[in-house]
């Protein structure tokens, strides 16, 4: 059996209907303990204070914000190449979630920045690239909204997603020419786990997994809604012609 079978809306709806309860449960048992562990049971760092605890929201949301866009990129490519409707609907469904995650990362970062850097916002390359990502999400969603015909909208938003990704990369590179950079990267990096004490690292990994599961759950949920909306439209059209 090929994975493309799930591109059939019917098959997709059946499978996900069975999957959803499990996903919700899994999300609950990773996300809640992760956050609770992180917030209540991990020590405060000597030079970070209580504010360090925001890391359990900040890092996972930033992680999802980027990866949601990558997922949309892949889904858009699949739509353009293989014309699988569910794929592009999943991309459409992921956009608002990605936008929200970007917003959470921005806001938690700002809240964290105030005690750490003494400023809510600085034009650091990494922060800036998040702001740009935020705008890309906005544009992508606005284009979906603006176009009436669903297939046209699917094609055009997919094209925008691909072209936009290239330019997003370019602007990320462009900001590296700026003289300054405040944002931590190596100090608490996931890739360089040895820099982080285990006490921070373990709950962090748990909440990241929780966020990933949350993302998958939400995307599937929203995709199901989109599939239903499309089906409603198809039925209405048929009724109209009759």
């Amino acid at each position, binding site marked *: 059996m090929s994975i493309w079978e799930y591109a059939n809306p019917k098959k997709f709806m059946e499978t996900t209907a069975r999957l959803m309860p499990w996903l919700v449960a899994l999300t609950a048992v990773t996300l809640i303990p992760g956050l609770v562990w992180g917030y209540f049971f991990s020590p405060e760092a000597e030079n970070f204070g209580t504010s360090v605890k925001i890391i359990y929201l900040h890092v996972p949301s930033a992680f999802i914000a980027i990866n949601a866009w990558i997922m949309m990129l892949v889904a858009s490519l699949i739509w353009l190449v293989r014309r699988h409707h569910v794929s592009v609907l999943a991309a459409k469904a992921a956009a608002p979630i990605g936008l929200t995650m970007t917003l959470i990362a921005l806001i938690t970062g700002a809240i964290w920045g105030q005690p750490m850097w003494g400023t809510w916002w600085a034009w650091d390359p990494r922060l800036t690239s998040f702001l740009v990502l935020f705008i890309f999400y906005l544009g992508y969603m606005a284009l979906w909204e603006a176009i009436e*015909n669903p297939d046209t909208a699917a094609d055009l938003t997919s094209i925008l997603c691909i072209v936009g990704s290239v330019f997003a990369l370019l602007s990320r590179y462009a900001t590296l020419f700026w003289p300054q950079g405040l944002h931590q990267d190596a100090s608490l990096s996931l890739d360089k786990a040895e820099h982080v004490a285990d006490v921070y690292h373990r709950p962090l990994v748990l909440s990241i997994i929780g966020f990933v599961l949350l993302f998958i759950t939400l995307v599937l949920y929203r995709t199901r809604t989109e599939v239903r909306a499309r089906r409603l439209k198809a039925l209405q059209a048929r009724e109209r012609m009759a």
Partner: protein
Amino acid sequence: MELEVADLACARGGVLVLEGVNFRLEAGEALMLRGPNGIGKTTLLRTLAGLQPPLAGRIGMADEALAYGAHADGLKSTLTALENLRFWARVHGTGEGEIGRALEEFNLADLAGRPAHSLSAGQKRRLGLARLLLTGRAIWALDEPTVSLDAESVRLFARAVERHLAGGGMALMATHIDLGLAARALDLTPFRADPDRAGKAGAGGADGAGAGRVRVPHDPFAGAEDLA
């Protein structure tokens, strides 16, 4: 030179509008598309013009053989009538000489120097029709070409079509009025259109349904009655 349409299905705004459209047009023939408002005449013409892909079926004709005339005339209001025509002549690689003939044929010679925005509705329409002569294409696919034309201009237009047909051209027109042309009619009915069936109205659906089965691609969202 011919135009052959077999089992064509077209959609508009993602909605299936026509299916099972069958007809054949030989050099020198004209076909009038008839049918009530909203039946899909515009949709069919746009599909034939290649502006939208057919959902199913086949359109057989030579490349770049069709000249499309839409509801809108494609005039630039700040350019003069002559400049408008000259642009289309250059796009289609037609000589300057043709432009004068086209102006003459639609009684536009006096208006050649006027900017298009200062023309009346019927004058604009005549200018839009004059463009057809400059495309040098064999098949004219026209959407309500006579809108806003007075009786005299309708005659001018009918004569232009006749001359085009006499020269081996073809014409396909959606119109609600009678042009007095010797032309077959294609009656569009919801979801089905076939000139052979137009005569035997009320003959029931059984006859052509087997032969003309349409291969409309399955709408992935229409079928799943039992979506969970």
